[in-house]
């Protein structure tokens, strides 16, 4: 059912090739209001900077962290931020700065692996459905609609409860839950790419189906997929925190930010730093990923590819 944009060229769902042409056309006429396209926005810069900091923190965590993140009683319990413990200590006397740093690794892992799982499932099915069309398309699309009709967070909870709560299984569950958004996006893009001259000429010279898909279609939609992945990554980090809130996420003593925040909530009045630092870490990271995604979309001019993004399977965590 609901794939209203299937294979249609709408004003807001042109392929990137077509839009390049349009941009050139627009170039010579100044139009009210001014349209900003293909430019580096401040959001992009800020987003990229935040994500860069996240990646740096994750990679350099062992070098930067003053303490073992899981070691208890490295300082007094519940001490406020200080020179020794820049983010304070928790109820077990662990150094929160070290825990946040190592938590960045978990956030990054969730973001990368979770979106990768969504993307691999979603894109391969999307390419299949979009390229084959007909019955295959109808069948796969139906399947994806069922998938999407399933309430996202509930699906994740059921999956994690089924697989057993662990960081790994939370990532798998969130990855599976996110697949339909990649499916929709890649299917729509494949449908339009199929009609482009270069695919038709590749077909004419007798290129195999898989070659056409992998060599001609996939490279042309990676920009849009990249945008989608940054946006999904933010959602997955949030949803992972939501799973931790109900005890189905990372296992102790892993310093997953959502788990830290869930504990920090109890200390809001007496040791507020325990909530603020993980809370702000999540917020900034998700904000950064969103700004990066939006910025990339402007930069790569995949604006109208947000068909799929619109249909993305968001989870309110």
């Amino acid at each position, binding site marked *: 059912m609901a794939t209203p944009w299937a294979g249609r060229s709408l004003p807001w769902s042109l392929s990137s090739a077509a839009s390049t042409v349009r941009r050139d056309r627009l170039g010579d006429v100044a139009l009210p209001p001014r349209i900003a396209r293909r430019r580096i926005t401040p959001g992009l810069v800020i987003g990229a900077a935040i994500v860069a900091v996240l990646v740096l923190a994750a990679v350099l965590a062992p070098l930067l962290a003053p303490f073992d993140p*899981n*070691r*208890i*009683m490295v300082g007094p*319990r519940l001490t406020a931020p200080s020179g020794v413990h820049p983010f304070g200590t928790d*109820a*077990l*006397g662990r150094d929160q700065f070290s825990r946040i740093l190592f938590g960045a690794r978990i956030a990054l892992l969730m973001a990368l692996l979770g979106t990768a799982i969504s993307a691999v499932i979603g894109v391969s099915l999307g390419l299949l459905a979009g390229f084959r069309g007909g019955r295959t398309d109808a069948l796969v699309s139906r399947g994806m609609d069922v998938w999407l009709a399933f309430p996202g967070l509930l699906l994740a909870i059921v999956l994690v*409860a089924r697989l*057993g*709560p*662990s960081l790994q299984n939370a990532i798998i569950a969130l990855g599976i839950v996110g697949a339909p958004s990649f499916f929709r996006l890649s299917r729509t893009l494949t449908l339009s790419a199929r009609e482009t001259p270069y695919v038709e000429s590749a077909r004419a010279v007798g290129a195999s189906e898989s070659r056409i898909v992998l060599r001609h279609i996939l490279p042309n939609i990676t920009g849009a997929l990249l945008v989608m992945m940054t946006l999904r990554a933010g959602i997955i980090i949030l949803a992972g925190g939501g799973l931790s809130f109900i*005890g*189905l996420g990372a*296992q*102790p*003593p892993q310093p997953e930010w959502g788990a830290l925040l869930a*504990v920090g*909530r*109890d*200390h*809001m*009045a*007496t*040791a507020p730093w325990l909530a603020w630092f993980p809370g702000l870490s999540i917020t900034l990271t998700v904000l950064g990923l969103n700004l990066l995604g939006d910025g990339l979309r402007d930069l790569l001019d995949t604006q109208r590819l947000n068909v799929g993004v619109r249909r993305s399977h968001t989870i309110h965590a």
Partner: protein
Amino acid sequence: MPRWILVLLLGSALALSAAGCAAPAPAMPAAVDAATVAPAVVVDATATEAPVTTDAPAATEAPVAAAEPSGGVLVRAMTSEPAQIDPQGPPSSGLSVVLPYLFDTLVVRDLDNNVVPLLAESWDEAADGKTITIKLRPDVKFNDGTPLDAEAVKFTFDRFKESGVQSPIYAGIQQIAGIEAVDDLTVRFTFDAPAANFWSTVSMPYAGIISPSSVQEAGDVSEVRLVGTGPFRLGEWKPGQSITLDRNPDYAWGAAVTENQGAPYLDQMVLKVIPDAAAQLAALEAGEVDVIFVNNPAHRDQLATEPNIRLEETVLNSLIYLGFNNRKAPYDDLKVRQALSHAINKDQIVEAALGGLGIAAFAPLPPTLPGFDPALKADELGYDVEKAKALLTEAGFTAGGDGKWMRDGEPLRAVLLTSTRPPNDAIATVIQSQLQEIGVDVEIQQLDGKAVMEAAGGGQFDLLLWRYDWNDPDALNIFLGSDRIGSTNRVAYSNPQVDELLKQGAQELDEQKRAQIYRDAEKLIMADAPWQAIYNPIDLMAIRDNVQDLKMGYMGRMLVNDARVVGQ
């Protein structure tokens, strides 16, 4: 459904359709929109009427009618609501909160753990311990107006034996061989063997006496709301929100646990469902509830600074222990169990993980139960890292360069299973780091309450962080008896000598002798180290100052008969 919900729903439906018409879009989709909203409203308007209103018997007595002493309305937060009002139904935290106010038991326990008469006025135990004859208190009426008599008591326990399989006290009830209504107010219980834990069993809220007519009325209908003789009657129940209990003005048979043994002073008690502990705390601070229970040290610290809130604490009849899988290598090796026991620093757990909300334990029974003996402290496998390492060496393990232990090419590492219930995560983390100190790597596995039950019962663990709450030393039999292996004896501990003692204890009616039997059993158990006792939890009741004379009773029960709420 409250009117305001209906009004707002209709309002939003109108607003949506109005917005649809005003929008530049053609009117058609808007109309469709409105149409989808309307049926939903109609459906729930008709259908919610039935489930929301409560049982007829409870509702007939308007709370306003009892206009005598107005002790106000007490509002207490509870984490979850019961599924049914049936003492013998599936147990839940919500059910045990509600039961004591709606149902009376034959006896109760006072603050010092003594058995005190409630519906039973007096009793007589035969010398062989196989017959107990109970005289019921006269002039007691159920909240549906029917009188409490021997038949009702017989009915209650017969029903329990027949269909109470889901109840935690089912095994205790099964010991009763026969119940006989001797006359109107005399009941005789017979047993095949003396049942020393009988009084513990029948003092549990689950053993509340039920009005037979309320069961017949409920029949097979879905809304199971049974009626007892309690100081309150079930009032309005808003599913997912709150349960209101109305004062029973005729109540005159309270136990000598509170000063007021007549009808409660409170007009009503409202039990508000608030699942999130942080939200409960906020609701208390905002004055939306008067009482909450606290088991989080951070919340305790926060409340300690609140001028209008006082805290009352009680030690529960509970033990948190670190169990070993006694049937699984290498934990089937006594020396390994002893070694790991010696690695546990209980004081650190109580301080760091609990913020002091517990008492470091050493014996298998909590200090509140008969059979506990401070002298058992001498048998404790106390915190001693060197001894732990020495014992591991004795058990045939050798420490590698990294301090990790190996035996027959197998490293010593453990999976620690526990539930997601707080503060298990913190305790497990501290235990993990303590075992790491002696070179044992621990992986923590936290499962939700149901999955963990299955995993623990199936022995899918090396170490088990578990808790029991029980009001009788028979707990040792339930959690360590050989014939409970595969169910509640999760650590699969088996010692025939202990079994024999526990069997004797279950049949010994002399309190002194019984306590001695359990002391002996505890000594044997501690030598076998099937588990390491960690602590006995402390429960806190946080009360707003406008509530007077609210007491914390046995097993953390809230005693409300003396309570008044002022300044409302």
